[in-house]
């Protein structure tokens, strides 16, 4: 119901809010889309009876039945393949990767079939592949990865990495409605740690391809996404308190299509930029963003472009090793101070 129609009907125009976790936001987006669009359904490993490894789809089987919540064999290529075919026929499948690391067995289906099918044949595939990414939960090399760079060089894919509950909900809804394949990376560290008051009586829809200013500032731009938005915010608060400088944080939200213009405009204003991501450094998104800034904002820069990223190693298991591997708030503070002093 729109505000106008509520006013016309004399109803309370104040929004109702409910505390919602990042995980609940993902659930709600799928639940609401499945309620309103019979073409939307879920496929994946243990998504039905068990409710998903992280319980994201708990209760879906009871509500929607086994034809719309399909437990599959452990066959990531077959699952993604079936999603492409069923999408050709007008359905809007949501595929869950139990951990986003397991997207690797489906790589061929994604990069060679899903990504290229519209370009080659004119017949598109509206589908979402979502799954828990990221480290910090001490899950070792195969349950902690960030895979966006694997797909960054493939035309035909959209990629989303929300940092907030609101964006988790709004971006997933937009991804489900998008006519092309969308990879949706949900950060497992944020699932139950991020909680926000979200309106219950308004549709949250966040368009793909539009970055969000998480914090405004005039001295330095931090370009980041996913769980690193929160570490960057902690760093910015510390810098503001201890150094008196104001950091602007740009949360990319969508990685492809990349909101290049938002990045360029912010950096042209602040003149300094730090790019932070949880994926390894070599060949990461920071490299592409750096290149774009060199092409479009070089003469506005007052300092070299710097990156804070994970190490160029696999993700280790033991907590001290993993903590060392992952970018930390201290790393962002240190790099920010270096840039501000330059």
């Amino acid at each position, binding site marked *: 119901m729109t505000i106008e129609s509520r006013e016309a009907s004399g109803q309370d125009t104040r929004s109702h809010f409910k505390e919602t976790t990042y995980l609940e936001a993902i659930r709600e987006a799928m639940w609401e889309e499945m309620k309103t669009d019979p073409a939307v359904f879920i496929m994946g490993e243990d998504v039905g009876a068990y409710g998903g490894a992280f319980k994201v789809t708990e209760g879906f089987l009871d509500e929607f039945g086994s034809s719309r919540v399909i437990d599959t*064999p452990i066959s990531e*290529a077959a699952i993604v393949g079936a999603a492409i*075919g069923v999408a050709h*026929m007008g359905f809007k499948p949501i595929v869950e990767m139990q951990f986003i690391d397991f997207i690797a067995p489906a790589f061929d289906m994604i990069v060679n*079939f899903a990504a290229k099918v519209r370009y*080659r044949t004119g017949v598109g595939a509206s589908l979402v592949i979502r799954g828990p990414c990221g480290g910090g939960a001490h899950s070792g090399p195969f349950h902690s990865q960030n895979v966006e760079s694997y797909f960054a060089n493939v035309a*035909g894919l959209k990629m989303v990495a929300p940092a907030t509950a609101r964006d988790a909900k709004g971006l997933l809804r937009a991804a489900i409605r998008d006519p092309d394949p969308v990879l949706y990376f949900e950060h497992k560290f944020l699932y139950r740690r991020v909680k926000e008051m979200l309106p219950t009586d308004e549709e949250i829809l966040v368009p793909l391809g539009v970055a969000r200013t998480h914090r405004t500032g005039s001295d330095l731009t931090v370009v980041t996404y996913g769980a690193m938005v929160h570490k960057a915010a902690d760093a910015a608060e510390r810098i503001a308190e201890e150094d008196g400088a104001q950091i602007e944080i740009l949360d990319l939200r969508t990685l492809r299509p990349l909101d*290049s213009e938002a990045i360029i405009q912010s950096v042209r204003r602040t003149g300094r930029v730090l790019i932070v991501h949880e994926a390894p450094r070599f060949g990461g998104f920071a490299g592409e963003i750096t290149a774009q800034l060199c092409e479009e904002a070089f003469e506005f820069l007052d300092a070299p472009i710097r990156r804070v990223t994970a190490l160029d190693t696999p993700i280790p298991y033991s907590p001290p090793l993993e903590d060392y591997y992952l970018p930390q708030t201290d790393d962002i503070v240190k790099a920010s101070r270096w840039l501000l002093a330059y």
Partner: protein
Amino acid sequence: MASLTREELRDLYRHLLLTRGLEERLERLFKQGQIVGGLYRSLGQEATAVGSAFALGDDDWLAPSIRDMGALLVRGLHPREMLLQYMAREGSLCGGKDNTTHFTIPELGLLGPISPLGTQLCVLNGVALAFRLRGEPRVCMTYLGDGASRTGASHEGLNFAAVQRLPVIVILEHNRWAFATRSEREAAVEDWVDVAAAYGVPAASVDGNDVLAVYDAAREAVERARRGEGMTLIVAETYRMIGHAQHDPQHYVPKEELLEWRGRDPLARFQSYLLESGFESRAALAVVKEGVRTLLDTAVDDALAALMPEPEEALAGTFAGDAAAVPWTRRTHVYPDLAHSAMPS
């Protein structure tokens, strides 16, 4: 034994002729430099594709392999479309963006494969899933070569179709060669029909060079799938009588083996059957041949007259609605309003 009408038998013959004739024209065009990429013929195994596709209804779907020209023609593809596709011309099925049988035409129930093998089975499973979700009695058919059936995607796709009891018919074309590797080095089974046991599905083995035997086996499987009884695997025993593609002189194939299989040529066999059984006269078959020749003559002339695509077409169509989009790579500068970045264009 197939219960086909005389008209249907003639149609089968016509499609066998058309398949071989079209591939012969393509080979000639290849030698004239008119084919842009590789050319993959189905010489010797035409009956497998034609006979199986003949068992489908108009509303069903089919995903060919690269060597199933006959199945495409049975589904209603015009030879001119195939010529334009191989010649990479403007207005071809992939608009010049992809080659061979890689096109998808929903109106004809055709799903294009891609080069990594077995993947089209996984995607076709989704089409079959859509039929089941909508409660439609439609079925899907696809092909795997003996080599293609060994990929992970093939195993996953076969298993997925079996577990989900999808209305899918898989024709395993045992044509003895995967490029230059013998099928004995692709799988350790003696009888390829045994692979079906791993998926718990019914299977049949059939003489792939006998178009009526292929049709019979396919029809039974199609009916089973339509009744909701799930997937069937059909192993068609056949032989690839030509190299993998035009560049391959097939020197690795023993001559006596080729001679032996030449005696089982599917087109000659069916022609003899029609004549000896009295279904057709030589004069009637001559009329069919003449019709096919005229059709192909015109198709080749039309295709040769078609233009090549405009270079900028390369930009269009990656995403929905981006036909006119100019990507980052082609911009000389992004912010022409700012003097500092204005470059001579």
